[in-house]
């Protein structure tokens, strides 16, 4: 099951990557990032069956950080929305050089 779990984790991660590359909506991109994080969590847990509980401890940390990141990230998106009235990433290009 370990190999299948790792394969599944890879596939989910890839789907997340495709989502990040393809979508323009900031919130959906953010959710794709969460999907990637979940895939990695699955990897951690799968490998913890081999190496002991350390993997699960890391998953705890990952989730905590994901929560914090989601909070702050969404706050940023709110702030940007208030400023530009859009979450379409293609229109937010003030840094264009």
């Amino acid at each position, binding site marked *: 099951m370990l190999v299948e779990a790792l394969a599944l984790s890879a596939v989910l991660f890839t789907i997340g990557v495709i989502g*990040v590359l393809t979508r323009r909506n900031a919130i959906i*991109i953010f959710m794709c990032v969460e999907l990637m994080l979940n895939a990695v969590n699955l990897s951690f847990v799968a490998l913890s069956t081999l190496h002991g509980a350390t993997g699960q401890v890391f998953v705890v940390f990952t989730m905590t950080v994901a929560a914090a990141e989601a909070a702050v990230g969404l706050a940023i998106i709110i702030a940007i929305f208030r400023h530009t009235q859009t979450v379409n990433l293609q229109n937010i290009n*003030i840094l264009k050089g």
Partner: protein
Amino acid sequence: MMIPAMTPEGAHPLATTVARLVWLLPLLPLLGFLINGTLAMLGVAKVGPADPSAGHDEHAHAAHTGGHDDHAHHAPTRHKFAGIVSLIGPGVLIAAFGLAVACFLAMRGVEMEHPYIVTLYQWMPVGDLNLAATFQLDQLSMVMVLVVTGVGTLIHVFSVGYMQEDPGYPRYFAYLNLFIFFMLILVLGGNYPLLFVGWEGVGLCSYLLIGFWFSEKANADAGKKAFIVNRIGDFGFLVAMFLMFANLGALDFGNVAAKAAELPMGGVMATTICLFLFLGCAGKSAQIPLYVWLPDAMAGPTPVSALIHAATMVTAGVYLIARSATLFSMAPTAQLVVALVGGLTAFFAATIGLKQWDIKKVLAYSTVSQLGYMFVAVGVGAYVAGIFHLVTHAFFKALLFLGSGSVIYAMHAAYHATHKHDDAQDMRNMGGLRKFMPVTFYLMWIATLAIAGIPFFSGFFSKDEILGSVFARAHGSTLADASLLGVPGGTILMLIYGLGLASALMTAIYMTRMMLYTFHGPNRTGEAERPHLAEAPWIMTGPLVVLGALSLVGGWLNVPALLGAIGPVGVLDHWLEPVVGEAALRTTLGAAPHMTHETELMLVGVAIAIATAGIAFAVWRLKPAALVAKKDAVAPQGIDRILENKYFVDEGYDKGIVQPTLDVSRVVLWKGLDTGIIDGLFVNGSALLARAIGWMGSQLQTGQVGTYAWVLLIGVITLLGAFTFR
């Protein structure tokens, strides 16, 4: 710097005499240069329509210009610093000459086995080369110093009169003093590089003085031509120095001579070094093929022509070969080349001189021809004869040039008074001047007889000695044993003797022609100008008299044994023997060249006959009365045309060398390389490259997070790929 076989400096007998001040000799004219140069710069500074250099050789007009300011580009008054410059310019020369005489007297009072070497400072202590700036005072350099300072003084004094109205008066004397400085460095230098410094310096001063009136393009071009042609020779000199250092390991005269004597006789290295040295001499002393600058150099003021292009600078090549006597004596093939080129040059230039109309050009080609004689002499190893002719030539050629300067001065005064613009230097506009300038007339006849080789004038002794040396060495010397391109040396020497005789004949002819057309016959200057033709002031005629006296008695410097009844025999021979004697003996296979009394008498007789025949022929065939003024002259035909146009050598050089060089420079180097590759490819190209890369970089900065995500993931894949395919 170790000088083997030379006594240490402190022990030289001259070290306690006035000769220890030898370093002062070049310093005095340098001082003059600095002072005159400063005065020149403090004076008129602008160059333009009313510029200080805008005069022509028809420059020195009489002091009374009346009230009319006719030539707008002449400044009719003297330069404001003229007084001081007139004192300092010739003054430092007189002081230098006095010191030279003192050194000479000191030298006569001691026994000089070795040269007196004064070390000034360590110049190039680099690795194997430990070169010091040294002055070498020996018999040879003493002769040269006396000639340079003596004749130089006379010419400085002459210039005070000749250039008195010139707006560039201080500049002229500054350059002239600088020239004497460099010339003294040349003759006093104790090693080849220091000699080369002087060599280059006199080339520079020649350029500055030829182009003295540079606002006329022809004068500036003449200066450039002189400098560039000289440069070609300098390349040869440099290569010779490199070879010397690489093979002989030394560059000072003593060591080079010592090491050269150890080389195999007639070896390749000695021959190569000598040939390259001769290339330098050909440039500086105007031999074939690098003589073309000397006639053009007549664009400079006449005293400059007298000093630089007759008496001193052009003789530097002869001096160099005499200095390198030991080296040359080890390479008979090179000696044959030197002598042959000298002989051919003498002949070639004499033919051109037969048909020149400008009085200074006649003298210029005559100088080239006489230099050829000197190279014949040093080429066959008769160094004393060569130096002897150098000295006598300095006397009578300077006299001829200064005399022609007086003539031109008078012609200019005449034309200036009548506002005509004819050529004041063309002999067709002269004629019959003996009535108007008798002193100059007689003095120039003395010089003409000297150069033609009439007995008991100075030129007779020196020219005869040269021809005799050639004849003697044709029958018993290393040269006769050697061969050039398969032709045995003896044959070549006899050929050179023949060329020498032919040149002597032509010399007599063209010099007499010059005198006839200038001083005899009817006057062609014009009715209006005739009243204004007059003798030059005494400040100009005085030096002429001195030179005339020297041309008369100069021959007693080296009376041959044949004519021992008239004076001390071989004074110069004995004087120079410690310096060049050994090398000369090597060429003549150890014994002094010996000819039977009968042979010698025959040679002398032939020479006298030729000289008189030439003069007689000229007097008989050339009718000054038949000449017309220049403006009415018809164009020459046939051989006349070829000679008058100097065999079209200049045109040939122009078409064959100058134009192709210019074309290559313009098309390949300028347009192709400079504009195209360096400007276009490197400069503009690199700017373009920077812009392109910058543009590519800026395309990545879209400011959109999506783009950055793409780039990020491509990077991740690359990294993973590195791990996967490891």
